[in-house]
Structures are given as C-alpha cells and as structure tokens.
C-alpha cells in the first residue's frame, strides 16, 4: 500500500516536474530575438495607458500623452514643435516651418514651411496645412482642443501663397506668443494621401486639401469620417463595432509619415514597434534599428522589468524611491537594485498643481462659498501650506512648489519674479492674525468661528453669519500614498489656525466628476476637491488662464470670477504684453489652493544609452536622438 501511495505521489509530482521541465527547456524566442539585435531600444509605457488612436485629428476622448506625445508625434510631426531641451519653448530645429511672422497689427500670420518630405516622396506643403485647417473648419466639434472663439473661429481667411507659404488672416489682433504657442501649436499637416474617402482612392480625391479655406465642409466631413473609421472611431456610429487597432501597422494610409519613425508592429495591448523612416528630412536621423514600446499593467511589473534589464528606458515608481535628493532637478541615489545598470533623471512636466475652492458652494448651510470669497481667508489658508517642507519630506525632495498660475519650473521666461518669490510663505502666526483681524475667534486644534459678522473693517465679510465655522469638506483622489500623506499634513497644518478640514478619499474620476463648476444660486454642496493633478499646459503651451481661471470657463471648476482677472487674461491673448499682470494678480489673489507639484517621472536610462536627456517637459520622446 505504502509503495502504491509513494508511486501515486511520485507520479503527480513527476507530471508537475515534467511540465515545468518541458516548458523551461523550450526556446525563449522573444529573448533570443532581442539579444540578436542590440540596437533595439525598448521604452516602458506608463501603466494601463497604451496608445490607442493614430489619427492626429481626434476628439478629447483620445487626446492623451500616450496617443500624441509618445505615439503620433513620432510619425506625424506637428507644424511647430514645442519642448526645446528641458524648456517648454518652441524648438525651431524640429518644427516643420520657420517661426511665424506677424504683421498687420498682429492680424496676419505668415507661415513658411521648410523642406520636409513625406515618406512617399512628396513635400510637406502649405496645402497639407490647409488640409488640416479645412478639416478643422468642418469638424471643430470633433477636435479635442476646440473652444469657442479660438481656432478656427478667430480665422477670417487662409491663403496658400505658394507651396511653402501660407497666410492666416485673423478676425482680431492676437498676442503672437499666444497664437503661436496655443493656436498654431494645434496644427499637424496631413499628407495628400489622406485626402480620400475610400480605401485605394486617388490621393486628393476627397477634395478637402486643395480647396479654398472653409469652402468644402461636406467633403472634409466625409474625409474625416473615413480617416476616423480607419483609426477605429466611427463618428456616425460611435458605439458600433470597428476594431481598426490591429490594422494600424498594415494600413497604407498610416505608413505615410513625415516624422522619423514608421509603425511596424501594433496591437491593442500596447505593444508598439517602430522602425526608422529612411526618408526623414529632419535634423537628426535615427540610428537604432527599432524603437519598441512595452506596455505594463502596473508600476511593480514595470519595476520588475527594470531590475531584470528588459527595458532600456523606464521609470522608477514612487514607492521604490529609496533616497531623497537635496535638489529636485538632480537625481539622488538610485534604487540599489537599479544603480549598477541605470542612471536616473527627474522629469517635471509643464504644469501647475492646485485644487479649487468652490466659490458657489452651498455646503455647510451656505457658509463655505462666502468664506472662500474672502481674500484674507484664502491668504490664511495658503499661508498654512508649507510646500518646501512637503516636497522634502513627502516627495523625498522630488517636488516643485506652485506659487501662482505659471509653473516656476521647468526653466522658462514666463514666470515672474513676484511669483517665484512666493508672497505666502508658511507662517502660522500670520494665518491666525489674518483670521482674528477679520472678526474670527481662532481656536487652534478646534474650529474657529465668526465672532464679528458684517462687511466692515475687522469683520468676517459678506454673507458670513455670526458663529459660522471654519469647517470644510475636502475630497481628494486616492491611489497615491504621497497624496494621502500630503492631505493629512495639510489638514494638520490648517488645524493649527482652527480651520477644520474633513478629508475623504475617492477615485480620480469621482473627484473630477464632483469638481464641476456650479452657477450661483444652484444647490451645489462640494467645497474643496483635489484630483491631484492640477493643470498641464499642453497643447496650449503659453500658460494663459482662459481655460481655467476666466469667468465661466469650462475648467474653472471653482467658478472663480474677477473682472480684473478677465481683463488681464484678455490682454494675454489679444495684445503683445507679458504675462506679468495676469500672473502676479492670480499669485496674489489665490483663486485656488496652490499645491506642491511632485516629479512626473524619475526616468531610468540604461547605462550606455545616450540622447535620452534632456527630457521634454511636454512629455514627448525623441528616440531618433538615442545612441547606444
């Protein structure tokens, strides 16, 4: 009996071992293939964000870094390239056109194209720019970056003067910086081969590219519909079955490129392989034979891939940062598991971090909104946010403070000295004084209350009742332990002046969904909502505030409203003035709670690979610069 049992167990284990042995001895085809081609560079995609849209003219649902900066831009270059070294500035060398010239009181803009070629041998011409503009005229509702009054609404006419020159006539004078950085930045010239409405049709047969501006909406809509379907989106039946993703690498349309790369492999999981476009006419040609984007399910899976050395460029997940840095722009010690094979480089994107006050909040019996409208309160609240300390302690030194509406880093010429200086440095006694001098009885560790209501000097302010309390609800996006730590640290700090903040966590989408602008008088109870990401200035690279701080703007979540601010913003878009007035005003006025901005990515670069740095603060990647 014992013998048979032994045999039984042995046979079970043997089958298990045999299975294991069999699969371990089979060849590892992928690994072998990788080892045979050392000039292949692999790059880690951010978790769960594989590229999934190839057509550059897209709706907001597809408008993402993974689709644009990490995918489309490698094949289809925008008219103007932003991100020059580690700055967000325009890069003339990588742009398809020379810097635009402004005339006629900044109402006429002339764009001269350089001698770039499409991979099918045709030149990138003014007609290709017109193709985009005609499509925008016909389908502005389906363009991600469209907002009323902006491109194409502010275009009176466009003239193709020659194959290399196109002139935009505008409806009103513009700030040249704003128009170049925020309007022309949206344009991606499209090849004539895309001006079709059916597979195999003759290039240009769609009738959208060569026609006069704004005269062929019907034709352009047909072309747009066809191209969108080729990309997987059917505008006439968005919920319909259209699995175009697997055809991306084989569809001849998408093989016509003017960028340094052509798509070779693509699947819906995010496996992307690009090969050099041999006819690329830009300044730096690729030298690596393949550029491979690798998808990851989670940060930990990506970290494992780094440790095993299977990606050349990846990122260190924040949970795996083991050492602090004394300078946020310089990497400290790397994770011990990676330090022998990788060097680390911090990347900060062109963004500010903040969360909104709901100025129209009806929360706390209607007390919250009127309190938020008091500048002294906002000053006290901001004074209790110790950004340098949080950057050092919570983000291990990898954080940049936000003091106003313009990023203080990456290096740029837009931020003012006033903002950089930070008018509201951390000071508990100042915060208490601001409150007590405006009629509040400050209860440190408890809840301060309004003792002296009214609108006069030394009183709490309009709409604030006697005994109204400084107690607010703050919902924040969970998922990052650093954000949770930050919220708790700030809660503790606000508590020192008797400002009681009740924290609650929710998903990013929930917070975002709750933080909608409310109209005055409407029931709207949210008070403070922190989705943790503030605002990224892309593709509107000139950091003006018409989208986030102007009265009634769709992304002005807290419904901040100021005539002075609206005037300042209008000036930044319509006159050639600096941002200083707008910027200094909002730095002083605190329309939102400015927050520390944690590092976007601690990029890990395999030793021996050069050209990855400096990294673009606009998150674009240029593997054509990479050299082994």
């Amino acid at each position: 009996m014992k013998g048979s049992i032994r045999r039984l167990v042995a046979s079970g284990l043997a089958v298990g071992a045999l299975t294991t042995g069999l699969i371990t001895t089979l060849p590892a085809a992928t690994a072998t293939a990788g080892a045979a081609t050392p000039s292949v560079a692999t790059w880690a995609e951010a978790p769960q964000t594989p590229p999934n849209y190839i057509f550059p003219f897209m709706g907001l649902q597809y408008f993402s870094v993974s689709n644009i900066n990490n995918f489309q831009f490698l094949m289809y270059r925008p008219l103007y390239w932003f991100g020059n070294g580690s700055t967000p500035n325009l890069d003339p060398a990588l742009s398809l056109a020379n810097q635009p010239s402004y005339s006629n009181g900044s109402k006429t803009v002339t764009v001269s194209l350089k001698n770039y070629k499409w991979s099918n041998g045709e030149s990138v011409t003014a007609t290709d720019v017109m193709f985009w503009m005609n499509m925008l005229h016909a389908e502005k509702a389906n363009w991600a970056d469209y907002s009323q009054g902006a491109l194409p609404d502010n275009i009176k006419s466009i003239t193709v003067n020659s194959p290399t020159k196109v002139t935009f006539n505008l409806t009103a004078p513009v700030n040249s910086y704003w128009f170049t950085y925020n309007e022309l930045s949206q344009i991606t010239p499209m090849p004539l081969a895309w001006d079709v409405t059916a597979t195999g049709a003759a290039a240009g047969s769609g009738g959208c590219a060569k026609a006069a501006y704004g005269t062929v909406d019907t034709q352009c809509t047909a072309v747009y519909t066809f191209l969108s379907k080729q990309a997987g989106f059917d505008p006439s039946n968005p919920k319909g079955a259209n699995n175009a993703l697997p055809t991306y690498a084989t569809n001849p349309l998408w093989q016509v490129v003017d960028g340094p790369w052509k798509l070779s492999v693509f699947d819906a999981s995010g496996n992307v392989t690009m090969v050099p476009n041999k006819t690329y006419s830009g300044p730096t040609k690729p030298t690596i034979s393949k550029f491979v984007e690798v998808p990851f399910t989670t940060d930990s899976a990506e970290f494992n891939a780094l440790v095993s050395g299977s990606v050349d460029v990846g990122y260190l997940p924040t949970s795996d940062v083991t050492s602090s840095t004394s300078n946020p722009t310089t990497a400290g010690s790397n994770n011990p598991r990676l330090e022998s094979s990788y060097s680390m480089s911090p990347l900060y994107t062109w963004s500010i971090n903040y969360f909104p006050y709901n100025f129209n909040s009806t929360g706390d019996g209607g007390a919250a909104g009127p309190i938020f409208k008091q500048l002294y309160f906002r000053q006290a609240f901001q004074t209790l946010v110790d950004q340098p300390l949080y950057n050092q302690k919570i983000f291990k030194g990898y954080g940049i403070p936000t003091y106003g509406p313009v990023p203080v880093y990456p290096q740029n010429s837009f931020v003012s000295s006033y903002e950089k200086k930070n008018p509201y440095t951390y000071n508990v006694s100042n915060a208490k004084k601001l409150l007590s001098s405006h009629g509040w009885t400050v209860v440190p560790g408890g809840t301060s209350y309004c003792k002296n209501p009214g609108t006069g000097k030394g009183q709490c302010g309009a709409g604030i009742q006697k005994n109204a309390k400084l107690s607010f609800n703050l919902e924040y996006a969970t998922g990052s332990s650093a954000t949770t730590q930050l919220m708790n640290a700030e809660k503790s700090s606000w508590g020192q002046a008797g400002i009681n903040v009740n924290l609650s966590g929710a998903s990013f989408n929930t917070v975002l969904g709750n933080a909608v602008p409310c109209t005055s008088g409407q029931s709207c109870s949210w008070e403070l909502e922190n989705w943790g990401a503030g605002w990224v200035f892309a593709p509107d690279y000139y950091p003006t505030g018409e989208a986030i701080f102007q009265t009634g703007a769709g992304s002005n979540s807290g419904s901040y409203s100021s005539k002075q601010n609206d005037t300042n913003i209008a000036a930044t878009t319509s006159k050639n003035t600096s941002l200083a007035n707008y910027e200094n005003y909002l730095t002083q006025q605190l329309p939102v709670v400015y927050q520390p901005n944690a590092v976007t990515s601690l990029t890990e670069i395999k030793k021996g690979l050069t050209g990855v740095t400096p990294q673009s603060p606009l998150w674009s990647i240029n593997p054509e610069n990479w050299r082994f």
Partner: protein
Amino acid sequence: MLGYLIRRTIQALIVILGVTLIVFLLGQLIPGGQARAALGPKATYAQLHHYDVQYGLNQPIWVQYWHYLLGLFKGNLGYSVKRNQTVAASIGVALPRTILLVGISTIFALIVAVPIGVSQAVRRNSAYDYAMTGISFFLYAIPAFLIATLLIIWFSFDLGWFPSSVPTDAGLWSIFTDPRSFVLPVFSLAALTIASYSRYMRSSVLDTLTEDYIRTARAKGAGSRRVLYGHALRNALLPLLTLIGLTLPAIVGGAVIIEDVFNYPGMGLLTVQAANNDDIPLVLGTTLVLTVATVVGSLLADLLYAAADPRIRLGAE
C-alpha cells in the same frame, strides 16, 4: 434531466438580466457622468454635451438600457471608448489568456494536489501528514502577491532562471513563444490552489475510508490498492468535482494579483481597470462574462456530480 436544464437556463437568464440591470444602473451614478469620465478635466460644456449626444447618453436611462439589450441580442457587447475597441475584442484578447494561465495552473494543481491529499489520508497522523499539512497551511496563508514577489526575486532576479513577466503580445500562442515566462505565474497560482485542493482531498478520502462499503470491501478481502482506487477514490473525488465546477468563474474572472505582478493583462486586470476608468461598457461586458461563467460553473458542478454519483438524479422531485 431536460426539464432540469431548461429550468436552470431560464433561471440563468433572469440572473444575467438582473446583473446587467444593476451594473447598468450603477454606471449612471458616476459623478459628472460618463462624458466627464471619458473626456477628463479639460472638457468644455460644449464638448461634454457633444459627447453625450454622440454616444446617446442624453437619452432616458431605460432607452439606453433597451438599446444595450438589443445590442446584446445581436451579439454586440458595446464599445469601450477608453480602449478604442469593441468590448468583445477587449474580452476576446484577455479571456483566452486568462483561461490559459488559470486553466494550466488549475490542472497543474489538481495533478499535484490529488496524490498529496490521498497520500496524507492514507498516512494520516504520520510525520509526513503533519509536514504536508504544515506546508499546505503555510501556502494557504501566504498572500498571493508575496509568493509571486518572492518567486520573482529568487528565480528571476537572483538566479535568472525565468523571466519576471509574461510576453504582452495579444495572442493565445504567446505561451509557445516564451514558455519559460509562464513558469512563475503558474507556480504562484498553483501553490495557493494545491494547498486548498489537497486539504479537500485529504478530508474527503478520510471520510470515504470510514464508510461501511469500504469496511465491507476490506472484509471481503479486497487489497489496499483495490480499496483505495477501486472504491474510495471515485467517491472521494465528488466534493472536488463540485469545487472544480465552482472554479470556472475564477478561471474566467482571472487572477488580478498574479496578472498584476507578472504583467499579464488578463480578465482580472481588465475588469479592475474598467472599473477604475469608469469604462461602463467594459464593466458591463466583463460582468456579463463572469455572470455567465458563474451560472455555467454552478450547473457544470451539478452535472458532474450527477455523472459521478448515480444516486443523484437531477430534477427528480
């Protein structure tokens, strides 16, 4: 039998319909709506409205649900904006991968666990039995992410025997392109299952060995091997059959933690990501698949039980 199957099928359809209705209604509770979830913080009012109109989200809920059901009858599970793919295509990629991973590990676990459980029962209260019990409890108690991480550190990072992740190419046949990469995830999953299956098996065999018919067989002079394999084992396997049937939802639903650690985009991660992204069509699709698997698994368990035990007559009043 036929009547039983018809009744169970009708019950299943009602359950499936109820589940889709609940998930569909829950999807309507997203703060800011599906448009905000899809378009993000930069969406203007006009864009949100345009999206709602484009995707029919401005219609009454019952109309949207009716359209969803009509689509289901036509085999259309919906379209995931977040993935720019039909739901069926997303599931079509993830499901075979999950079935492959969880299926292999379940088979592997059965092959190892049944002999261990039987041998423990036969040698009950011996040092071997105690040792295997201890190992089982240890494996049962250890969290999946820990065992997976430890295996990666030892066998991938330190020894370099196996890759730390599975190829992410969207294809069922990826196991044949890099079979070594499946070793660690299969072992991680199987370790947990072996522990539970072997305990079931041990207990079941012990129960069976005390039955009257076993004593009778022994009294009639049947040898140990004949008693064990001829009489005890088949009956002892009955509880395990039920367990295997009920494992079907897990096989289809995926193993989130293992998929997570080994970079294996299967059904578990697909479901979690869909929920995190407020991707309602995909949540509905994965829930539907999981519901069907649960119903079918339960039915399968009953049928297997009846097939293995002639005393059981399904549907008998």
